[in-house]
Structures are given as C-alpha cells and as structure tokens.
C-alpha cells in the first residue's frame, strides 16, 4: 500500500485516496473551437508511461482535496506531491 504525502494533511495511506488519472492533461477552454483529434486526445488518448508520471489523486477520506503526485509507475516511488493550484515544474 502506497504512502502518499498529502500537501494539506501529511503522510497518509493509499486507502484514503482515489486515483484520478494523468495530471498533465488540460481541459480545453469552454466555448472554443477544437478539432476532433485534439478533443479525443483530451478525453481518451493517454500515454501509459513507464517511469515518472504526474498523476491526480483525491484525498477522498481526508481533506477531499485533489492533489498532484509524481510517481514512478514501475517502482511506485513517489518523488513529489503538489496542491491542485501548484503547477507541475
């Protein structure tokens, strides 16, 4: 079970969190023309990387904040966690 540092609450076990997918995906702006390809990239197409990966987690059974977690998808090592409003460097 992973041990995740919630930027708001500190170290917490994985069972308090739920996974929310790739954190680098940005929702296209509302009311803007967008090609089918770009929209599909937003909704469906993911890279499924091996290695370092920024992903979203929600501290569901805690502060309920969505956070960004940099995790190695192969080793599960967690390098960094950020609040929702902090940008991935």
């Amino acid at each position, binding site marked *: *079970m*992973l*041990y995740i540092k919630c930027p708001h609450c500190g170290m917490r*076990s994985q069972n308090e969190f*739920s996974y*929310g997918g790739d954190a680098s995906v940005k*929702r*296209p702006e*509302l*009311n803007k023309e*967008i090609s*089918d390809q770009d*929209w599909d990239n*937003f*909704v*469906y197409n993911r890279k499924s990387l091996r290695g370092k990966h920024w992903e*979203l987690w*929600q501290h*569901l059974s805690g502060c*309920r*904040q*969505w956070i960004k977690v940099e995790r190695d998808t192969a*080793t*599960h090592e*967690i390098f960094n966690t950020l609040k*929702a*409003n902090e940008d991935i460097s």
Partner: protein
Amino acid sequence: MTQSFRLENVGLVNRDKKLSFKFNGKTYYGYEGDTLASALIANGIHLIGRSFKYHRPRGFFGAGVDEPYAIVQLYRNGETEPNVKATEQELFEGLEATSVNCWPSVNFDIGAINNFLKIFLPAGFYYKTFMWPKSFWYKVYEPFIRKAAGLGVASIKHDKERYEHKYEYCDLLIAGSGPSGLASAYAAAKNGARVILAEDKARFGGTLLTSEANIGNKSGKEWAEGIITELKEMPNVTVKNRSQVFGYYDHNMLVMSERISDHLPKTKKFHPKQRLWYIRAKEVLISSGSIERPIVFGNNDTPGVMLSSAAKEYLKVYGVLVGRNPLIFTNNDSGYESAIEFKKNGVDPIILDTRKNPQSEIVNEAKNLGIKIKFSHVVVAAQGYKKVKSADIAKISDDKEQVGEVENIKCDCICVSGFWTPTIHLASQSGNKTKFNADIDAFVPGISKQNEKTLGAANGVYTLDETLKSSFETGYELSKKITKKDNKISFPNVVEKKSTIHDKFWCVPLPKGKNYKRFLDFQNDVAVSDVEIALKEGYRSIEHVKRYTTLGMATDQGKTSNLNGLQLVSKIENKVVPAVGHTTFRPPYTPVSIGAIVGREVGKHSKPTRKSPMHSWHEKNNAVFVDAGVWLRPRYYKKGNENLFEGSKREAKNVRTNVGVCDVTTLGKIDIKGPDAAEFLNRVYTNAWLKLPVGKARYGVMLREDGIVMDDGTTTRISENHYHMTTTTAQAANVLSHLEYYLQLVWPELNVNVVSATEQWAGAAIAGPKSRDLLQKLFPNFDVSNEGLPFMGYMEGDLFGVKARIFRISFSGELAYEVNVESDNGTFMWKKIMEIGEEFKIQPYGTEALSTLRIEMGHVAGSELDGRTIPYDNSLEGLLSKKKDFIGKRSLTREAFTTEGRQKVVGVIPLDKKTSIPEGSHLVKDSNAPLPNPKLGYISASCWSVEYDNPFSLAILKDGKNMIGEKLFVMSPLKNKVIPVEIVSSHYVDPKGERVRS
C-alpha cells in the same frame, strides 16, 4: 504410551504440565512448550502423512516454518483447520490432529500404488495425459485428481472465531529475534527508537536457543532472555512472539500475522484468534536467519531423514531424541554440532562427511569426544519404507562424480546438513536485487530498493561475533538517523568455536545399476529425474521449469528445495547458478488464514449499513427492506400475506388514486454556495441555469467529458448564491468528487463551495392526486395552491414548529411534493404525514412501487443511465443547450453519437398483455433466426402498469425513434422465454405531463 524418546532434564519444555492429545484417534502425552511435532517424536511417531503425488510415507524434516512434510488436519474447540504444520503448532490440552492425503489410513494407504506406478507419473504427466477430450477435465479428471492429491479439508462451516486488523507505525521493524534481531533491536531501542520486534516462534532467541556459544559471561540462551526481558519493559518497544512478518509491500508497509490463540485449547473471551498487523516502518531490519539445505540422495524422503539442525533443536529445545542410532550426513561443520549434542546425551552417532580432511575446532571436538567419523563418505540411499532402518553408504571420489563400493549400515535416522540458505524472502519481496554469493552457494540480498537491511545469517553471515557486531552497529546507526540521539552501547565479548569451509556438494550420484528416487521438493514429490525430463523437453527458464515440474510450488514454497533445484538446472545446462537465476519470491512467506486476511469485515461488518432517520418506523410497519448501495430502503410494506408483486401494486395504485408517501432520504444532496454557483451549474448541467429564479427548482442532466450521462436530478435555488442539488442515491459520492474536480483543478477561478448534505436532511415524497390537500393540512398557514406553489416551485414552511423545505417536484409523474426537514425531525415529519394523511387514505410506498410509477411514466433512472447511454438515448436531447458550452458537449458531436438510427428508449408491451418481461432480455426481429440472433436492444426496466393493469417495460432499442408500432420478440435464454411484443412510446401514462402541473 510413554514418551520413550524424551530425555530427562534436557530442553525448555515445562515438565510440570503434562498435556494429552490425539493423533489419528490415538491418545498420547506431551508437555507444555512442545510442538505437535516434538510431542509426536517424543512418542516415537515418525509417520505423519503421505506425499502429494506418490503417496509415499512422510515424517518430519524440519522443526519450524520450513517443514515440507508434517502437515496435519487440526481439530480445536469444534473447528477444523487444514494444512497445519505440526512443527509450528504448539501443543495444548485436548489437541486433536489427523493425517492428510491418505485413505483409508496413514499406515495402509491405497493411493500408495502410485509409488509403484511412478515411472508413469513423470513431470508434466497431468498436462500430457488429462488434456483430451477437453470436456473430461472438469467432470472426470479434475475431481479424481483432487481427491487423490488433495491436502487437508477446509471447513465449510461459519468460522466463529474473531480476527482483527491493526495498523501500526514504528521507526524500526525487526523481523526475527535471533542474535541479529535482538542485537539490533536492543541497540536501536536504547537509542530511543520506536521498535517492533517480531518472532514467528513462541520462544525468542532463534539459534541462540540451540547454540553453544557464549556472549559476555552468559550462555547464548541466557543472554537472549536478558535482552528480551529488558526490551519488554521499555515503553518504546513492542515485542511480539508467534508473529510472522510474511509480506513486504510498497513504501515500507509490512504485514504480520500474530497467532494469539492458536496455541490455546480455546480462544479466551473477547480475544481474537489471530491479528493481522499492517506496519508502516521507517526502517526494516530483516533478521530472518537461514534454513539448512538438504543433500540430495536416494530415497531421501524416507521418514527419519531430516535436517541436522532440526535434530539438534528437538534435542536442545524439547529434550527429544529423533533416533537412538543416528547417522549424520554433512558437507560442513554444522552436522558436527548435532553429533556432539547426541554424544553428550549418551547417544553414539556416526558422521559421514563429504569432505576429505576438514580441520576446525568443531571437528576436533567431535574427534576428541570419540565420535565415529567417515570422511569422503556419502549416503547413497536410505533404506526402510515407513522409517529409516539402515543406510547404503559409500566412499566418494575426490571429484565427487563416482561412488565406491556400497556398504549398508544400521541407523534409525539420517540427519542431513548441506550448509545454509539465507532466508531472503522479505528482502526479495521488497524489491531488493539479490545476488549470488559463491562462498555459501546461495543468494543474499543485494541493492536495497526500500529502507531495508538484512542482517546475520539472512545476509549470509554465519559467525556469531560478526553478526552481533554488525547488528549492534546497524541498530545504532539507523536509530541515530531517526531519533538524532547518540546512546551507543558497548557490545559484549563472544566466545564461539571456529568452523571451516563447507564442501560445495549437494547431490549424491547414483551408483551403477541403481535407480533410486532422489527428491528435490519433498512436499510436491519432485525428483531429480523430473527436472531432467523438463529440461530434455526443452524447458529452459527456471520459472517454466518450476511450473512444469511444480518444484517449489507446494505450501512450503520450496524453502528447502529451491537452491538444490537451481543447482541441478545449472549443472544440466552447464551454467553457473546466478545465470539460471531464482524464481520470484512473493508474499506470503508462510500460509496465512483467510480469516486473518478478512479480519472483522464479515457478515454485517463487511460494509457499513446506512439507515434513514425513519428506519425504525418502517421496521414497525412491516417494511421489507432492500439494499440500495449501502442504504437499506423499504421495498414494500407488507400487509397480511402479500407478496412483493401484490404489495407494490397496491402501493402504486394508491399513489395514482389517492396519495402515498415515500422515504427519499437516501437521495444524494449537495449544498452549493458562492457567487459563481449559477455559472458553475451552467457548466456542469447540459441545460441553462443562469436565469433560474430564487425559489425555483430545475431538472438537470450532467455528462461525463465523453458525452455519457453521468447523473440526473433537480437543483433548487434556495437564495441568491445558494443551491440545493439532488443526485441519485447510487451516484451521490461520484457526483461530489466530480464537482470538486472541476472546482479545484479545472476552474479554480470560480468562487463556489460544495459539501455533501445527504445526511443532514430527511426527505419524504408525497405523491398522488390528493397530495395538495394533504400538504395544505400539513402547512395550514402557507399558500400551497397551484399558483402559490407551482410545478418546480420551492418554499420554506413550518411543519408544526419544525422548519421544512417544500419542493414541488415529481418522480412518480403524479402531482407531488418533497418535504425535507433536518434529520433529527425526520420521524416527527413522517408521523405527521401519516397521521394527517389518514383521511386521504395515505399509504407509504417502497422502492418497488416507486419504480413502477417512474417506469410507466417513462422517466429514465439508473437502469437506463447505466454509463453507456448519451442524452439522445434517454430522450433527454431536449435538455441540451445549443447556446452554451458544458461538460461533455463536444463529445456529443462525434460521429458515433450522431449516427442516424442510434439506440433510444422505448416502451414495450407484450402482445398478450399478460406475460411479464424479464429485465435484461434481448429484443430481436425474428425469434427463430439462427444464432447468433442479431440483437436490436435490451429491456432495461420492467413493471406491472397499475394504470392499465398489464406488463410494461422500458427498453433501449436500436433506431428506437422509428420503431414505435413495430412488433418484435423479447428473448430471455436465461429464463427460457420468448414473448411477442409491441414497441410503444416510453411515456405510457400521461404522455403530456399534465398531472404534475395540475
């Protein structure tokens, strides 16, 4: 029977407490502190069971966790447990055990005929033989093989014992209480670290209990006792015996099973049987020791052949002789230690040493004691069927390839020592890249992946002095890192006998003309010849060889067989062992009871049960409940002998003619506040929300970004910047997360707060033509007329002194209202509604009637909004705003969602107007078409229409828009039904929606 193999005044068992126990129906005696194994050996019992494949007699091989043979069916306090290791099970008064895998008895076992057919049962036999015909596998082969080759029998009764889970955090977790575990725990604890020390056996001390070495001026055993006593008194230390750390998971999470009551005749009141510990440790020290390796020789599975360390443990810990005429077969000095113990206790052993001329203190001591030693000698084969009677021995050539003339000598046990294998399971589970150490012919931990270090014998260090030094040092260094303290203790002087190097000999060659079975894996009956066959047949990867031969796949997980298997493969392949590699170590290290894994989450405790505030009223009024997620909801209120069908029909009919009341507390409720709330709702829902006035409700549909309907419900504007959203019962949690996602990550600029209010409000839906009359009486001072409270209107009222929210919304399609009060007032509200509603013939209705009412009205719900449908499919396309953007809108323009002839919700009526249509049935054009019959759609929900008194269903049908009036067939292969039906509009009752506005 007397304990004829028990020595006097030797061992750590409590001779003041004699215990009686039964094995295979016969009564024996042992002492407190015995294991079942030591007590049986004390009584001269060496035949415990039969082997897995050939049903060969099985005795004892080890004295602990590594035991491959002695597994029994245990009976304790009216319960039975399969596959218990006799070497681990502590004796208690009244213990009963039986052999497994033999019929009719362990002495006369019919399956043993396999032993004589073994030439026909080589590796892969089952794969090769039982493949054809395919259908025979389930019906004939598998049940037969399972019966013949099964182990113990699992109980099918409910387990009355209690199992617990515990979560713990510590600075250092130390697995194993041998010399390295004690030393590191002591050093770390003295330096202020929070330490957990776990020992899988009942006694602490590991090899110190049987060692002759001295630490300080004490014996190893006394030193261990002193350390443990001190550790137990320290507040920063948790010391646990009977506790096996069996799994090393991510981020230094380890799991340990503590056997709290297994050693007692009966679990004490309020105590659990076992406890599973989830331990998050900052640092982990693995001091799991090592397991002695067997040497492979002919008939090496005969009862009486066992590890020399086990023989020593039985003698020194339990005061039990494994034989009176022992033969020690060794390639290193450890065998001498066992021989010396025998000699000291008046038994004359013979040592066969594969080495030519070893020189060491221990060898010299054996010589000086007058023990008979034959150098450059091996055991070619054990003789005897149910117990060793003699051994064929021979001289071995210097190149170890040839055996000389065979001589038979009498003996009653053969104690084998093939050197030591570090127990690296936990280190390997943690992700440690293990490496091969050629000096000890075994793998040791290499580069750590997590915060883990391996100490002592588990790390391939076999001298006590070096082990203690490095363990004290490591315990101190790691604790210093964590506690920043600097209390270093000096380590004691160690006196131990020096040993010399071992002989890398592991397998005795067969003499000419002999074809003895030489076993590698004792539990799964894998012999040298089986591995040879696997390699001849082309298996190369050790993982494949393992699976094909089942080497190391038994319940002991190859603790004694893995390395010899690797040696054999590398020899045949002409490779070095590290090039062959080892198979993956996976948790658990030893079998763990399912009960312990499940813990308290059984029966009603497996999930929470949510009840509405009116639950006890429902109970008192004969509600039959149904699970709705984790909620319990009344399905119908039983009157007399009514069944579900009759009861729900009565309730639904009463709503259509008079008035009914339904508990809708379970609906998800989300409180939304903030200046940008309207804008937020406008983006979340597909329809327009900016112009909703205060005091009005609106129905809304929300999508996922992929265009699929996520949920629906009404949202009411309570005040300028305050909204009350309702969701379906099932989606409440998901919708809240969904809203939080957009507010926190996508549109953080919106000033909006959301919070779940589901539990804060009790809700009652009042529905039916007489609902307004009832409402007026409930709120006499408020104008609830059609003008005062129009359809989709909202007002705050006073229900006899209780603040209430009144929404004019309808799920049933009738004139209807929902009244919400604070949860604590829920029962008060409900009783008032029932009391005042009496004159209007009010009846409560449950979820079944609720479904009936919504189905015949054509209102879509969970069975249509099933995560596969878009708004069009549910005839909700009218709610899609063309003017504004919203979540998922762009997806609706994609080709698949705009294709002509897309599925749509329709109504379905059986042509005979009598036959009920099973939910989930398929709709087809031709009921006699050849399979696979093209499916046009499926029945999503069915009811008995109370309006028209005939069955009515909703279906999602291909090109549903153009199918109204078509005649199709409903097919349910599950229920074996074919029903001719007509497709009609989904709005079966009141298609214009006049009633809700009346």
